């Protein structure tokens, strides 16, 4: 019998979903104070004020679709470590529907969506099929790394020019 694991499914927009392991999914908030940061990468265009701290706000739909979306107030707070033993970092991920929890196993494994290429493809840890839709489990620590920004200049410029 295949082993199962719990994951939270986040709706990025009407076409794309991602999943986070349960241990990384910290909180879901429906209203948030967001402050735009000039010259930040398009997919990290704002900071989120959350529990008396500032955390980066990630709009993954921008990376997936390569176009700018209207702001959304619903956010899932994800926690991650850059390496074992280091303090937790937090990031807000913009969602456009209620997150929900599911159980996944190896039998539902599949290929990532076609739109996932470049840095986005590199961030995919694994992928599973849910309701005939391919849902990637992404590496949040990788997506939040400085190195990613340095390596993604070309892709970011594409988005900036939209």
């Amino acid at each position: 019998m295949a082993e199962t694991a719990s994951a939270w499914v986040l709706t990025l927009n009407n076409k794309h979903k991602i999943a986070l392991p349960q241990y990384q999914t910290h909180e879901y908030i429906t209203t948030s104070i967001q402050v735009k940061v000039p010259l930040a990468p398009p997919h990290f265009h704002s900071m989120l004020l959350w529990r008396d701290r500032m955390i980066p706000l990630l709009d993954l739909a921008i990376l997936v679709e390569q176009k700018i979306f209207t702001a959304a107030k619903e956010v899932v707070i994800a926690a991650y470590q850059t390496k074992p033993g280091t303090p937790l970092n937090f990031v807000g991920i913009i969602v456009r529907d209620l997150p929900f929890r599911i159980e996944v196993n190896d039998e539902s494994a599949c290929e990532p969506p076609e739109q996932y290429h470049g840095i986005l493809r590199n961030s995919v840890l694994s992928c599973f099929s849910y309701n005939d839709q391919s849902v990637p489990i992404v590496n949040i620590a990788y997506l939040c790394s400085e190195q990613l920004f340095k390596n993604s200049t070309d892709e970011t410029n594409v988005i900036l020019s939209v």
Partner: protein
Amino acid sequence: MTSNVSSIQLAILDIGGIRISFPRNDIAGICLTTDMQTELPANNREVAWVENENYQWPVFSISKDFTILPRSSDKHRFCVCLDRKQDKTFGLTCDAVEAFELKDNSAALTLPDCMSNPISPILHVFMHNQGLIFMSNANAMRDFLLTLETVYG
């Protein structure tokens, strides 16, 4: 008992809703934009000149996204002359200016790695009244404007 907490005197500029602060020592003077001379040779990146302390300061205007504006916004009522250690640099237009004391300098944080941009003049940020104040200084803003001039000038 002594405290390691030290305060920073700042001037906060409101530029189209974005609030960016400079050390008070970097501010040489504040003029009204109505006092600016806007007749300039063609192809200049500055929007005007302004006379302050017997010096003509080139004046730049930037948007809330930090792009150089071809002319000052109608909402920009003030021109702040930035002066780093007597090295007169430039003026920057803004909607409003306010003096502010950041009582605990440890409240100033760097942007997360994933949001930092090497050309950005934003050096630090701090939270104030449920909002963010960006921190820069005259040198960082001058370097940023020079970079934009190199790229687009």
